């Protein structure tokens, strides 16, 4: 079972037998990959289309300075100011906006901002939410009760308002850049990881293997780190992907309301849309359609990946559990029908 799967994911030299100890470390990721590979039909389609879109945006984000024709706040070139609100065409494929900035460059640099914020936000919420959930679920008691109440309160709060207030409060101390936006978004998503991880720990800590570890004298730290961690983070990839999608919308929402990243700091799609409201009334569609379209595409991509993963990993929705069985044809036909 293990040997071929390790070889497949490692990229394939079968001649060199992989030592078994690494199997333990690779376990969860390997299992995830195996399940992803088993995806069929619509789920497979969702996963791959989503992954393709996401990869395109990641490439845009990483190589933004090489791909974008101009800087994210550049409004002159060679001493000549770009035309204001010029229609798409010529040297500005997506036109220019009210600040005379090239819209295509804004869209490309915007993907960099979006990905930076989202990666930071998801990382922060994982770093805070997962340990808190594990500790809360494992120890229980008053700490658990207090944490649950706080997290429930945060969860119930209209998320955008929470983000606005946090971003607003951080404006003076941290500034209005990527970090502020990431922290504001983190606060929204911590409760989700907390809930999911705590729930899994609650059921997993009664399992015989945890009890056995405890009987052997393992310290709580060891139990949580070695025995519980990989068993309770099964649903985290799905949540993380879906949260990443949601985080992009929240970031754009913050920008749209004027509490996000300021245009002097970085290009941000939501802010562009806010400026686009006035343009739309005058029929200048390109200043908002392109950044807005970028949001829709990236969020769709991430959601497709999340949905696909959910289809594959969620046992309630999963249709095929285990490997697809390939029966030898013809030979065993007769007896099989009787059984």
């Amino acid at each position, binding site marked *: 079972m293990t040997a071929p799967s390790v070889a497949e994911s490692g990229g394939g030299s079968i001649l060199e037998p992989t030592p078994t100890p690494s199997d333990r470390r690779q376990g969860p990721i390997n299992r995830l990959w195996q399940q992803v590979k088993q995806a069929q039909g*619509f789920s497979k389609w969702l996963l791959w289309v989503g992954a393709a879109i996401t990869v395109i945006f990641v490439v845009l984000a990483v190589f933004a300075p090489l791909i974008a024709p101009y800087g994210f706040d550049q409004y002159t070139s060679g001493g000549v100011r770009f035309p204001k609100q010029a229609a798409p065409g010529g040297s500005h494929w997506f036109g220019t906006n009210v600040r005379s900035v090239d819209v295509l460059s804004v869209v490309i640099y915007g993907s960099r901002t979006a990905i930076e914020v989202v990666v930071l936000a998801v990382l922060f919420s994982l770093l805070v939410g997962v340990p808190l959930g594990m500790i809360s679920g494992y120890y229980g008691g008053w700490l658990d009760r207090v944490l649950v109440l706080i997290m429930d309160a945060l969860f119930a709060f*209209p*998320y955008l308002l929470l983000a606005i*207030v946090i971003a607003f409060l951080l404006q003076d101390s941290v500034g209005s850049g990527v970090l502020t936006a990431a922290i504001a978004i983190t606060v929204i998503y911590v409760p989700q990881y907390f809930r999911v991880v705590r729930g899994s720990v609650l059921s997993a800590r009664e399992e015989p293997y945890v009890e056995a570890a405890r009987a052997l004298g393992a310290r709580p730290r060891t139990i949580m780190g070695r025995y519980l961690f990989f068993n309770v983070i099964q649903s985290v990839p799905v949540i993380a992907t879906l949260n990443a999608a949601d985080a992009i919308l929240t970031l754009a929402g913050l920008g*749209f309301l004027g509490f996000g990243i300021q245009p002097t700091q970085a290009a941000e799609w939501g802010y562009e849309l806010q400026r686009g409201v006035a343009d739309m009334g005058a029929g200048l569609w390109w200043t908002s359609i392109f950044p807005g379209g970028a949001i829709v595409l990236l*969020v769709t991509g991430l959601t497709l990946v999340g949905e696909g993963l959910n289809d594959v990993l969620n046992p309630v929705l999963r249709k095929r559990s285990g490997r697809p069985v390939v029966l030898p044809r013809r030979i065993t036909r007769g007896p099989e029908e009787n059984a």
Partner: protein
Amino acid sequence: MAVVAGSSGSLRRYALTRLALVIPMVLILLTLVFVLMRVAPGDPIQSALGGKLSPAQLAEKRHAAGFDKPMIVQYLEYLRQVVTFNFGRAITDNQPITTILRVNGAATLELTVSALVVALVIGVPVGLRAGRLRDSAFDGFGRLFGIVTYAAPVFFVGLIFQLVFSKWLDWLPNSGQLNPIDQAELPSHTHLSVIDAIWDRNGAAFSDSVKHLIMPALTLGLLLCGVVIRLIRTNIIQTLKGDYVEAARARGVPERRVVLRHAFRNALVPVVTVMGLQVALLLSGAVLTEETFNWPGIGNRLVSYLSNRDYVAVQGIITVFALAVVIISVLIDFVNAAIDPRVRY
């Protein structure tokens, strides 16, 4: 009916337990709001009016508003405000917060309720069909529709509607709740413009208010629609796997009836629950929709008060948002307990 009467004892006990659980939740939310508004750099008066008044006047204002008292006194004062539902007056424009909540809250209510109607009218049939015909082309389309409506930010959808229906086709007004003439003529009974127009039998104002409502309601409705489709689909798939569904089919119950009466009814409890949780999404979406369409709702006011750093107004509005979420989630739980006896404990 007889069944309900018989089980009313346990329903009442459930209701009381649920209400008792609300108190710590509300307290924590209120404390959260209070702490958030107090960790802000500078005090509220300074931020809102600093630079406009002399230091002496500022100190006087500060004293009048009670911001020079110890934190714990301020906290208790805040709790008293919440209990008496009197949040004082906004610092910047001196309007009573309660008035803002009543007038602008009505506009938000009008928007959210109509958006909810839009979401259910589109979402339920699509979700049902998609769940029943799982993995068909329709299912794929339905899921994709759900994903795209979720992926498109409300304000972007709103902008596109404005471009198409207002700028290009010129069918609907671009923004606002009523045109200025109707606004001036229509007396406010309920602050809900559509209801007010019906109240006064004012045909022109009615059609005007409906026209103004269509785009915002559609915009916010589409956002929720994706959630509804996804929810109904997943739950229908699950309930259709139930033995009782198989049994109903075996008895020869028509498929339509199996889906609508046997599967859908049982799928409804989780749907109602999760829709209850979407209040937060609905309110967040409302803030963005109001901002896009310049709809005079409570979110619109909140954004402008935030920009003006009016902490008193912000605190009042956010408190009410938080309370609304709690109240609605309790109501949803009661509805669920009434529908499904298994929910009560």
